[in-house]
């Protein structure tokens, strides 16, 4: 096992432990929460008395569309059973399961990336081109931050769920 290593440094032992996996899932929840409350924060700020923009700019439904896309993409990606991705080589898994899984996964990643790109679009078109200055510019920047957080969260959740296979037997026996 160790003679097949490619890199000079060994993989640390904690990477495949159950505790790391659990911490990863908690971290994913925390990151998603940060993204979600960033979004809530900027819409609350938009209606508060601190928002002094003269031709008044408020958060509307348009600002929420990227976040909705990101959240849907995260839901799609993480509701797929990861072991189905390489399932076509086994005989018991029916035909074309891996193909369908990859298609749905592609849709999920497209939604996630589309959410991030959409938030940048909203930032540029709605705030930067109208020369909004910083306290109010947060309504656009926070949108990008929120979508990036959701993306990071689903990446962490993905990695944490893929750690599962190695130690499942230790847990069961």
């Amino acid at each position, binding site marked *: 096992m160790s003679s097949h290593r490619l890199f000079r440094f060994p993989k640390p032992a904690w990477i495949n432990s159950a505790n790391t996996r659990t911490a990863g899932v908690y971290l994913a929840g925390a990151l998603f*929460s940060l993204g*979600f409350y960033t979004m809530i924060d900027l819409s609350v*700020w938009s209606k508060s008395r601190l928002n002094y923009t003269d031709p008044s700019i408020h958060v509307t439904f348009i600002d929420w569309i990227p976040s909705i896309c990101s959240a849907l993409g995260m839901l799609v990606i993480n509701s797929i059973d990861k072991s189905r991705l390489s399932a076509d080589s086994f005989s018991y898994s029916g035909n074309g399961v891996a193909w369908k899984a990859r298609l749905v996964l592609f849709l999920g990643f497209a939604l996630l990336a589309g959410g991030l790109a959409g938030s940048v679009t909203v930032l540029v078109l709605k705030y930067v081109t109208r020369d909004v200055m910083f306290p109010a510019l947060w309504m656009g920047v926070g949108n990008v931050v929120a979508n990036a957080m959701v993306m990071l969260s689903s990446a962490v959740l993905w990695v944490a769920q893929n750690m599962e296979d190695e130690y499942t037997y230790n847990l069961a026996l």
Partner: protein
Amino acid sequence: MAGLKTIISLSFVLAIGFLLVILSAALFKNYLTLLVVATYVVAPLPNWICGRAANPDDFMESSGSGVIDFGRFLTGFFVVMGIALPALLYHSGDITAAAMTMSVVGGLLIYGTIITFTLFFQEEQEF
């Protein structure tokens, strides 16, 4: 393990946590920060419910851990929510910085007490 001293000190910390949160609400006549208490009381619930829902004996079924993972995800969500909510209210000018600090510290004390308490109880049930 969980002796009398532990229980007494835990309840002491819990009381301090509640004191801080209630003070942060009552001092400024703005009761929005009480939401933090609700958040931290709800936070351990998903873990507990999903732990019951998943069947740990059934080790042929590998998808059972999905439910547990969902519970952990929700717990992480609620814990950050307890910090994010006062920060959000402070940022939009609804509460002052002092109220934000007090409610965050108080909420963390309450949640720490709940977690420590469940840890002690679990250890007693195992044996």
